[in-house]
């Protein structure tokens, strides 16, 4: 507002409009663009500062991280990465492997099961469809803590505690109502004429899904891939509850091994591994970012 004020001021009283005076510099579109860019860059730096702090601190000795002001390390300690990678009893590589396995398996499960469930809700007619859909939506509102103990008892009876199954197997049974809802919205937006044309060509519901609906679901599927990957990769609580052996720990659990609020914490190695831990999720996000926006925008779930 303050920037625009001189432009809107009455001509006779504005210094920029007085004959013989140089035009006020904000009137120059180039200057304005530069100023806006500088402001946006500063804002971006402010927002990205915690990330920069983390990366810079991952090269500092632990004794300097919180006691020395300034972003850049006085002493560079790349050994934080070596120490962190070596881990506490278990190499951090194991945690990365476990996290990526769980994330990829959960993505595959959600893609297959949620798309099938969404297709059924959006296109097929069956008994109690509305009730089933409502029940599915209710599960969205159910806090995870409510089902924690019953689920744990179930998996314990199946001898699946301290394995990866409780963490990825449910995704093969369409348990993520959010993604089903997202895909239902997307499928509802696809022209039914495509289904009818396929039906005329002899396709049943299965082939319509496989050849028509599934390929057209791509933006919603990409959204599902990204969010499932990131949510599984970042999940702490479920993995904490079900995994006991450190050989099965994932990245979030591995990072917690460096910290203890009651004792001496290895902040340097922890920040070094946190920096590395960002890479898979960041790479996935950067690669798919255009499709994420498309997916969100075309599924009607944007805020």
């Amino acid at each position, binding site marked *: 507002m303050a920037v625009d004020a001189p432009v809107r001021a009455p001509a006779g009283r504005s210094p920029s409009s007085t004959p013989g005076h140089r035009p006020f510099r904000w009137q120059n579109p180039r200057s304005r663009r530069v100023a806006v860019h500088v402001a946006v860059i500063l804002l971006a730096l402010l927002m990205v500062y915690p990330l920069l702090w983390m990366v810079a601190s991952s090269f500092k000795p*632990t*004794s*300097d*991280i*919180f*006691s*020395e002001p300034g972003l850049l390390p006085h002493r560079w300690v790349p050994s934080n990465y070596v120490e962190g990678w070596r881990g*506490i*009893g278990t190499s951090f590589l*194991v945690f990365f*492997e*476990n996290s*990526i*396995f769980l*994330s*990829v*398996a959960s993505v595959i499960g959600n893609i297959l099961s949620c798309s099938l469930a969404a297709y059924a809700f959006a296109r097929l007619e069956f008994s109690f469809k509305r009730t089933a859909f409502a029940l599915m939506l209710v599960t969205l509102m159910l806090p995870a803590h409510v089902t*924690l*103990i019953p689920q*744990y*008892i179930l998996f*314990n009876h*199946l*001898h*699946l*505690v*301290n*394995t*990866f*199954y409780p963490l990825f197997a449910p995704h093969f049974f369409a348990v993520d109502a959010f993604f089903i809802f997202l895909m239902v919205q997307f499928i509802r937006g696809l022209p039914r004429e495509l289904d009818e044309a396929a039906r005329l060509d002899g396709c049943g519901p299965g082939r319509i899904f496989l050849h028509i609906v599934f390929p057209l679901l791509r933006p919603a599927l990409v959204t599902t891939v990204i969010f499932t990957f990131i949510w599984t990769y970042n999940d*702490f*609580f479920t993995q*904490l*509850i079900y*995994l*006991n*052996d*450190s*050989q*099965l720990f994932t990245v979030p*659990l591995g990072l*917690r*091994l*460096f*910290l*203890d*609020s*009651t*004792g*001496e*914490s*290895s*902040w340097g190695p922890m920040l070094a591994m946190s920096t590395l831990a960002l890479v*898979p999720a960041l*790479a996935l996000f950067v*690669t798919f970012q255009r499709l994420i926006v498309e997916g969100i925008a075309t599924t009607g779930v944007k805020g």
Partner: protein
Amino acid sequence: MTGAPGRRPVGRRSVLRLAAGAAGGLALGGCEPRGLTLSSGSTGTLEMAFWGEGDQNTRLIAAINLYQKSADGVPVKMQYSGLQGYYDKLATRLAGGAPPDIFQIHLPYLLEYAERGSVHQLDQYAAELGLPSLPPSVSGTARIDGHWYFAVVGAATQPAVVQNRTLLARLGLDQPDPSWTLDGYEAQMKRVRSASGGKLYGCADAGAVIAPLDSYLRGFGKRLFDGHGGLGFGPEQFQEWLGFWDRLRREQACVPMEITAGATGFQTDPVVTRKAVYSLTATSRGLPSIQSLTNDRLSLLTFPAANATSGPGTNVIPAGWFAISSKSRNVEEAVGLLRFLATSAAAAKTMGLARGVPISPQLQAVVSRGLDGLDQQVFDNYRTVTAGAVAPLQPFPVGAGELLTTSLTNANQTVGFGRATVQQATDRFFAEAKRLIT
């Protein structure tokens, strides 16, 4: 959709396929089928859950490995982490019927777990675990209603005052006398403020820290809880306590409430961030933790006595209690492991002070050889405190956890932010105690 032919020789799709292939290969094909074989509870293999930071865990793991190699040793599956989430997981495992054979536990939960039958009674193993020889100052926490439930590996002093010797020397101030009282404490903090020209505060705000409050009360022969579902002290003592810290804040002898409320752990402690010269940690084991976060030279002091006629301000607390699950099918083996950790010289030597100073004098002699500077201070501090009268610890009743974390913090903060008088905060605290403690 497809784009012009030849427009993108190396397209996004190729890159994605390559990345997906690599990730999938790594995740699904390249590694052994870890975590995919069904688990089965086996008799003879112990599961032991504990928390701790790197060195604590590393040394305990080394001691457990020694046990596994010993003649009586059985295989042990060690399940360790930091404290965050530890009790969520333990509670879920207990409720879900799959508790570990042995688990670590600490003061706020001892009574709760014993009363609800989650831990195995150790009366018949008490002698071999060295429980009857525990000093009265800590034995009350291992024994509930006349029965032994918890094994103790080591102990530390609580609370501990951490002093920044570098800043103190820069200000030209002397160290306080170790037999100081709260009046002397206040005077020293004001000296720091004055000598630094208002640039440094004297100390961190410990108005809402349980261990100093506990020690303060024990100095008057009072306890936090009366053992019958109520508080063991009256409003007047609590008012004096809150009032003491309120006065220090007003005199700028301790850090303002904005700093205290924003502190989240050792990493934001005012001594680490160089805003104050003194800080308080729950136990003396906090010294190495804080020292690792700063290049300044730190040292340990005892907590001041309430006044010249009161008991000593510093007491002793086990650095960890270990319990055997009431559902364990390996009780004998679990007792064998705990006996090794609590009474074996080899275990004590391996663990050093990572799990506290061993309680038995014989084991203290074992660990005392070859201690480094910080550990030596922790050790000396323990010896000094235990040489005098040490008031007994007590297990906390159910509901005490919330009272001593949330309600105590609220009381100190509402006074510190000027939202309540000391009287109002005290009334609210006592009302909440009535509601929470059972």
